[in-house]
């Protein structure tokens, strides 16, 4: 009996490496987590950008990005030489997202502005379904998933001593970090950035300053759409393209945004990196019988619930006091 039990427990599914047995593995997982975390940070930022200025959680964020990525896939296959360059596609994905975000705000969100939160939630869920169905209708004929090009190799890795990191993940990190830095500069060093922050904080006062609040909201949605679009084009080469490909990213990014504090821009970035690292470490160090790779998403969400029990506003979120 005893032998049977110990034999069972030493079966591969119950075995997991321990961090202190191999620090370079630990280091590698942390680095990989940070690299993926940039992607979550990017989408979390897209969520926060909309939430802090309109109190709306855009559930259609993932599908807007998915739609844009499919559109890029179409023009990639259009045969025009210019569009066969993955760098060009990446930039265009951002621009497409920018336009889509602005259109969605003007056409879908503007009419329900000021309506109860639940109404708006249902509208964004509706948008989710519409975009998903339309994308399936247009693009999901024939074989799925479809492959999407990357400017760097998805298969090759760089050796940095203690870790070997896939080239494409470095790209995700670099582009993600670049986009975040640009956004930070926009917010902190430009007049329009200051106006956006002012609008997010006090729309009434912003109006009295002569700020066109409607334009600022459109701009917020546009920037959010751009971040989502870039994120979609960055991850598509890895996970391949199908109508639900952005959903896991959205869930992790929600977790990241809530963890960091839904109204905090730095919080979204920090939350993204924490979720990225946590996902990798949990996946590496928990025995598969207890937590298979398919359990890493629920586990991330459990982590989220645990943190929110302790700090409901998230790590860097501010408690907002609303005066009526």
């Amino acid at each position: 009996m005893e032998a049977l039990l110990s034999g069972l427990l030493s079966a591969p599914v119950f075995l997991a490496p321990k961090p202190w047995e191999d620090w370079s593995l630990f280091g590698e997982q942390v680095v990989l987590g940070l690299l993926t975390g940039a992607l979550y940070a990017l989408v979390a930022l897209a969520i926060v950008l909309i939430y802090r200025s309109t109190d709306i959680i855009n559930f259609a964020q993932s599908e807007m990005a998915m739609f844009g990525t499919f559109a890029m896939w179409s023009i990639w296959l259009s045969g025009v030489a210019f569009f066969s360059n993955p760098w060009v596609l990446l930039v265009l994905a951002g621009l497409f997202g920018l336009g889509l975000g602005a259109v969605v705000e003007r056409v879908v969100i503007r009419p329900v502005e000021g309506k109860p939160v639940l109404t708006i939630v249902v509208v964004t869920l509706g948008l989710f379904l519409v975009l998903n169905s339309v994308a399936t209708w247009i693009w999901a004929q024939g074989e799925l998933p479809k492959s999407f090009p990357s400017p760097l190799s998805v298969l090759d890795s760089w050796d940095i001593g203690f870790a070997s990191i896939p080239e494409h993940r470095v790209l995700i990190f670099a582009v993600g970090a670049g986009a975040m830095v640009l956004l930070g500069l926009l917010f902190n060093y430009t007049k329009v950035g200051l106006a956006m922050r002012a609008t997010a904080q006090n729309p009434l006062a912003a109006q009295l300053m002569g700020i066109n609040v409607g334009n600022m909201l459109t701009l917020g949605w546009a920037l959010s759409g751009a971040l989502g679009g870039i994120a979609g084009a960055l991850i598509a080469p890895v996970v391949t393209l199908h109508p639900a490909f952005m959903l896991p990213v959205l869930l992790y990014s929600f977790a990241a945004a809530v963890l960091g504090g839904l109204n905090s821009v730095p919080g979204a970035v920090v939350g993204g990196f924490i979720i990225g690292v946590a996902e990798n470490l949990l996946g590496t160090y928990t025995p598969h019988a207890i937590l298979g790779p398919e359990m890493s998403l629920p586990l991330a969400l459990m982590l989220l619930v645990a943190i929110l029990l302790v700090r409901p506003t998230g790590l860097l979120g501010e408690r907002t006091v609303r005066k009526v």
Partner: protein
Amino acid sequence: MLRLEGVTAAYGPIVALRGVSLEVEAGSVVTILGANGAGKTSTLRVISGLLRPQSGSVEFEGMAIDRLSPDQIVRLGIVQVPEGRQLFVNLTVRENLELGAYLRRDRAGIRQDLERVFSYFPILAERQRQAAGSLSGGEQQMLAIGRGLMARPRLLLLDEPSLGLAPLVTREIFRIIRAINEQEGITVLLVEQNARLALDIARKGYVLETGRVVLADLSENLRRNEEVRRSYLGY
């Protein structure tokens, strides 16, 4: 300069203004008195384009402005310092002042006006880098007025500048409002609960009751009016 003619306005089913008419002459200080809920703030909201009148007209220098958006109205030089100050509390004092000049493009002029605001309110210069929310009530009111001045207004709408302030601070604020009017030639429309102070600096005043103008006269006459004395001056 500014003329309201028979303005009615409502928040959904709740009627706020029932045919308000008033006139503000260029270069003057005019005050609107009245109890809570009389329609003082609603009048300012209509002028700033935050509340659409259902009927009546609002004219600024002969031009109808009741269909304009709030930012277009600021562009004309009508700037409101709202009730409860409505500062951007998480932004710095400096950023709040910069936002006051949001529609302006003349960098040199903005810098000049910043110095001017700091000369009126030296404490703001010291607290430039501090979050607006960390200021005391009086300092916040100073910042709200300073922010309004940064737009280089021609007509300044002040909504309850004395609200929640100690008497000494209130007097200081009113001294500066007078200076702004006399030295800069900025026309002021002042909504105020403290009728005594308001009638001291205003040339004329309107008394609102439940959305109607019930009295309109020069300040010296209002001060002598039996009704005003009893209801608003308390003697």
